Every structure is written in C-alpha cells, then in structure tokens.
C-alpha cells in the first residue's frame, strides 16, 4: 500500500452562477465550515511565440512579486525562481531548474506575456466535532474575456477518507459540472485563452500525387509559414523570428531546387529569383545575430588579457547589428517586398503546367529517385576523400549531405517517420563535423569582414587576430575528423538501410 492510497484524490466542480451561493448549504451539518483566507492576484502567463510550453501542457506563471513558476498538469510545480527583472530569455534567469527547463523548452525564443488571469482564491476548512480539520475546500474565481467563472475543489486529508466521501457525495448532488481535474490551464481555456499562433505543419501529400502539384503545395506552405515571423522581425522581439523566417524560405528554395525538373524552366527561374529576393537581404542581420549569441564561446577562446578587445569587438558588432536591423525592417516594409511575396504566392498557387516528365511522375517515385541520387553522390564524393582533399570539395560534400537530409525531412510521410528519423540520426555524426568545418570557416570570414576597419584600436586588431587563429585551428581539427565520420556513415548497415528505404527496384 502506498501513502497515496490513504489520501483521497481531489474533486473539482465548475460552478454555474446559480450554484455559487448554494453549495455550502449542501455540506453535512455535523461539519463546521470555517473561512481561512482569501487571496487575489493577477497572474501573467508567459510563453514563446509558438506557445511551446502551453502545447507541452506546461504553464510559466509570473506573479506580481517577481515569483516565476513553471507548472505541469494540474499545476504541479516543476521549477520556480524569483526574478524581479522580468526575464525574457532562459539565460536571464538565475541558475537553477527553471533556467534549465526553459532552456530546453524555448531555446533562443523569448517568452512574453500571452495571457493574464485575475484569480481570486478563498480557502475553507471543514472541522469535525473536535474542531479537527477533516477536509478543505477551495473556491476559485477568475475574471477574463469570458466574464466570471467559479470553481470549487474538495481536497482530502490523509486518514479522513470517510468524511471526504460524505462531503463529495453531498456536493455532487447539487453541483452539475464535475471536472475530472482542474488547473490554471483549464481556467484559462474557460476564459477563451488558446494559442493565438498556430504554427501549421506542412500539409501531408499523397504518394500518388503528381510531383509538380505536390511540390507547389509544399513550397506554398513553407513560404506562407515564413510570413508569420515577419512581425517579430520588425518588432525585434528576439533573434529566433529571423532565423525561422530564413529556415522556412530556405526549405522552399531547397525543395524547388531539388525538384526543379518538375517545373518548366522559365517557371523555375522565376521561383528561384523571387525566393532569393525574399531571403537575400536577411543574411547580414542573421550573421551578426549569431555572432552576438555566441559571446560566451568567443570569450572562452582567449585569455583574460583580450577582454578589452572583445568588449570593443562586441560593441562594434552590436552597433552594426542595430543598423542592419533598421535596413532589413525598411526592406520588409517596402512595397517591393510585398510585391515579391504576392508574385511568389501567385506563381506557386497557379495551376500545375505538367510540362516535364518529372512533373507528371508521382511524388513518391520522384522523392525516392532524387533521394537515392543524393545518397549515391555523397558516397561518390566521400570515397574520393583523402588527406589533401581541397576545402571546396569538403564544402561540396557538406552541401550534398544537407540536401539528402532535407529530402528525408520533406518526404517523411512517404518514407515513414521511424525510418527517416533513423537515417537522419545515422547522418548526424557526419553532418556535425561538416557543419563545424563550415561554421569555423564562415566565422573567420565574418571576423575579417567586420573586425577590421581603418585606424582600428590595437586591442581590436589583436582580438580579431587571436580569434581568427583559434578558429583556423578548430577548422583544421574538424577537417581532420571528416574522413573518419564519413567512414562511419558509409558502413554496410547504413548503406543497407538506405537501399531498403529507397527500394530502387520498386520505382
């Protein structure tokens, strides 16, 4: 027997306005109802843009005194912290469980107030003839968009099961709406609170759908998704909006490029131009964001004597970031941007032309064919690797891997979720090392582009030089691991898995 077996589970009711006055009259006369205390507070509910916490059944509540708590189902406490500074990112919270929970749940997304609830709680005790508390009652009243709502909860005490059962039975006779469970999320839902930002997943395609129709449908959904992040970029809510905007457009570009034979050449050329026009101006700001987000890593690369130079460098990059943001916001607000979007959507939503062989082929056949080609290309490039392979060839391998990864993700419904996930995880080791190799290269270029200026202070020049040297070393080190990572990826089991999935004989 567990301890819980002797503690009754709570009961909850939603009270209609007519029930609000009468419930106490239903209580057994031998028990005395005592009002303990009342508490009124307004709770702010914080969440990321796409309501990640809410969707996981969690709530991040900020109370008036700077007390933050993260709750799970039925308000069970997961983590808590005190911070009066109104933190918006996990790294702005004090070290502890709340910080680490939000780090994994929200990543770089900021959390902002998404709802607010005025909650009035009245606590009551039920005492027996010895004046001993045998059960507790909690009357909660909320006020929000749907007006006033009231709830009554009966909470049992260990060892007083009989009294609990009698009270529960009496209340059940007069209260109509018995709720199985009750928590703040339920109360918010009753007030009409619901995720405002529905991040739609890409609609499923049918395996027998013709390739051009399927690709248009998918690219259209990807481009539409990009637009929902524009407001966050304009308001500079956090860096994640721009990142996701770019991810959505990049996916649309990759999909149409990988499946370009499904389009008539002039149509594809127009698509490519429009997608480049929409995402092109965002690169500069994203590079600056990434650099600023990695401050801790860059600081750890150099000894303390470089601190002054690092400060100068980050101040300079932050200034440039401010300027780049203004430029991008101006571009997004320009009529040309609106026009480019309208043109892109019109082009994608137009009736399929079915001018090419691939356009008329089923998407299932095209997806398998394209994916297998990419896989063979990777094997071909990887087998040619040697100690002296030039850097551009390593970059080419990285790009091929990225294409294969995208294909496995785009057509996950056709390949099967488990199989796709399995193969993606097989690719992870190789992709990680290739990604590092590329990142270190991009970061060196970034530093050379932004860190140098005429009449730059000596500390700044020294710091840029120091960072570039470390990054160069790290890039060489990543480069030395590419061959081994490829060997692991090309092992017979993974090859067999790819062939089994792509079944060339079936297509």
């Amino acid at each position: 027997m567990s301890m819980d077996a002797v503690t009754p589970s709570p009961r909850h009711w939603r009270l209609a306005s007519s029930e609000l006055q009468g419930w106490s009259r239903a209580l057994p006369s031998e028990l005395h109802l005592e009002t303990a205390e009342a508490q009124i507070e307004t709770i702010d509910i914080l969440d990321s843009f796409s309501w990640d916490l809410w969707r996981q059944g969690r709530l991040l509540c900020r109370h008036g005194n700077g007390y933050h708590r993260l709750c799970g189902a039925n308000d069970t406490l997961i983590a808590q912290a005190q911070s009066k500074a109104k933190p918006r990112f996990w790294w702005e919270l004090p070290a502890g469980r709340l910080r680490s929970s939000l780090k994994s749940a929200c990543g770089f997304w900021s959390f902002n107030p998404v709802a607010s609830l005025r909650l009035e709680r009245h606590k009551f005790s039920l005492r027996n003839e010895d004046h001993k508390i045998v059960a507790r009652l909690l009357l909660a009243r909320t006020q929000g968009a749907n007006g006033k709502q009231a709830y009554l909860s009966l909470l049992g005490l260990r060892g007083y099961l009989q009294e609990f059962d009698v009270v529960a039975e009496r209340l059940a006779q007069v209260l109509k709406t018995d709720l199985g469970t009750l928590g703040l999320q339920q109360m918010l839902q009753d007030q009409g609170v619901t995720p405002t930002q529905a991040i739609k997943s890409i609609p499923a395609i049918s395996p027998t759908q013709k390739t051009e129709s399927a690709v248009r449908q998918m690219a259209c959904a990807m481009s539409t998704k990009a637009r929902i992040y524009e407001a966050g970029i304009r308001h500079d809510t956090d860096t994640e909006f721009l990142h996701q905007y770019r991810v959505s457009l990049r996916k649309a570009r990759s999909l149409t490029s990988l499946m370009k034979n499904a389009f008539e050449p002039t149509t594809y050329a127009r698509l490519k131009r429009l997608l480049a026009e929409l995402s092109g101006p965002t690169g500069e700001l994203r590079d600056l964001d990434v650099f600023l987000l990695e401050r801790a890593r860059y600081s750890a690369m150099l000894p303390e004597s470089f601190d002054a130079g690092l400060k100068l460098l980050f101040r300079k990059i932050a200034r440039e970031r401010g300027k780049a943001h203004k430029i991008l916001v101006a571009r997004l607000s320009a009529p040309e941007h609106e026009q480019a979007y309208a043109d892109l959507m019109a082009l994608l939503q137009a009736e399929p032309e079915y001018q090419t062989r691939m356009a008329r082929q089923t998407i299932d056949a095209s997806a398998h064919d394209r994916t297998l080609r990419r896989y063979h290309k990777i094997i071909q490039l990887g087998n040619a690797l040697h100690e002296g392979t030039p850097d551009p060839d390593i970059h080419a391998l990285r790009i091929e891997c990225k294409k294969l990864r995208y294909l496995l993700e785009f057509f996950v419904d056709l390949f099967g979720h488990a199989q796709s996930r399995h193969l993606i995880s097989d690719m992870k080791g190789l992709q990680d090392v290739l990604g590092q190799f590329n990142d270190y290269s991009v970061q060196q270029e970034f530093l050379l582009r932004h860190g140098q200026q005429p009449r730059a202070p000596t500390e700044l020049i020294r710091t840029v030089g120091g960072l570039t040297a470390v990054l160069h070393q790290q890039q060489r080190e990543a480069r030395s691991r590419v061959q081994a990572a490829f060997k692991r990826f090309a092992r017979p089991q993974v090859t067999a898995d790819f062939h089994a999935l792509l079944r060339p004989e079936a297509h």
Partner: protein
Amino acid sequence: MKVIACYSMKGGVGKTASAVNLAYLAARQGYRTLLIDLDPQAASSFYFRVKPARKKWGKRFFQAYEELLQHIRASDFEALDVLPAHLSFRNFDVALAGLSKRGKRLKRILKGMKDNYDLIILDCPPSIGLLSEAIFNAADTVLVPVIPTTLSERTLEQLMEFFSAHAFPKSRIIPFFSMVQVQKTLHKSTMKRMRGRYRRFLDATIPFSRDIENMGEHRAPLDTFARNRPANQAYQNLFDEIRPLIDRRA
C-alpha cells in the same frame, strides 16, 4: 529520514510538549514530519485533535508497515502527519515479548517510511522495557527532557547505565533542561552541576510556563497561540539546536 525519540522513564517532564512543538516547528520549516504517539495516554494525539481508530490494533503495530500506514492522519498543519496512540498500546511490551527480533522491529517498520518523511518524532511512554529497547534501536537521537532536580538527575543516570548495560551508543542521548524555574536556587545549582557532568546537554532550556500548560486548553502547538511568548521561543531555540542532527547525512 531521521528518527528522534522524546523519551524519559519519568513522567510529567515535558516529553509530549516537546514532541508536539518540535514536530510542528520541523514541519513549518518544510521537513515532512510524522509524529508517532506511542504513549497510550494519547496526549500528543489529543493536542492535534486526532482521534485513534476504534479498533484495537496495538497487537499488530510491530507486524506490518502497511498496518501503520492505515492509521496515519494528516494534522491541521502542512507537512505534519500524526499516528495517534490507542489504549491498546499499553500492552506493547507484552506484544513485543511474543515476537522474534523484537529489538529491531520498530526500526525496520520506520525504515519503510523513509521515502515519505524527512523526520519521525516518537512521543514515548514513561517506562523502561522491551518497547524502550526497540525505541533506542530505532532512534538516531534520544532527546531527554530533564527537570533540574535531584530525582531527575538520578533518572538520567539510570538511563545512561541502561544504555551501557545493553550496549546502546550513549552518544544518542541528548538531554536538555525542561520545566526550568530560574528563580529556584535548586534548579540553578543542579543545572550547573549536571552541565559539568554531562557535556552533551543542549544550551536551550525550556522554562516552566503557563503557556505550555495551556496547550491542553488550545489543543494546538504553542506557535499557533503564543507565538511571541518565551516558551515558544525556547522551543524554537531547541529546534534550531537539534536541526543539524536532522540535516546530518546518514
């Protein structure tokens, strides 16, 4: 989980008042606490307004942990549960005499509660016998209230001798002065002498107090009705002094 026994073979020395107030103060500090009333007079159960079960169950007390769980009651205070005494507990020595491994029975049963409680406080009856031996085995600390009089001094000596004779570690015995009347010369001189003789006496002393007597009237721990009174402060000091024993890792 730590087990503290409030014990004295002498009656009326303040065992129950100590058990009740310490259990309450521990729970208030967030320790999940269980007060087990082993005294058939059921005074600590009375203070918490917890009635025992109607059925006689004292015979089965040492037999199964599950049986004990059924009798635990929540107090009116957060994190504090009470296992009320029953009149049938007066036969504990007889019940234990008929059992094998009787010395370790209580210890084994309490061990089963380690996931549910941080602290168990035993309010013990004023006797010495098989039950006391089981208590001395089960408790990490035997907290002994001592009235600073010659008679109480003798009682403490007897307890020390009992521990030596039965090979219980004497380090478990932590005495403290109870029902102290500082205006009495006898109390002052006895306290001085005993502190010289027994180094482990706690610094905190519990005064003789009408507030403590009034606990019976209020049926509640001191902190709920005499928060700012000296007696309550004395129990707070006592708790602060024994707290490191609760926090000490096993």
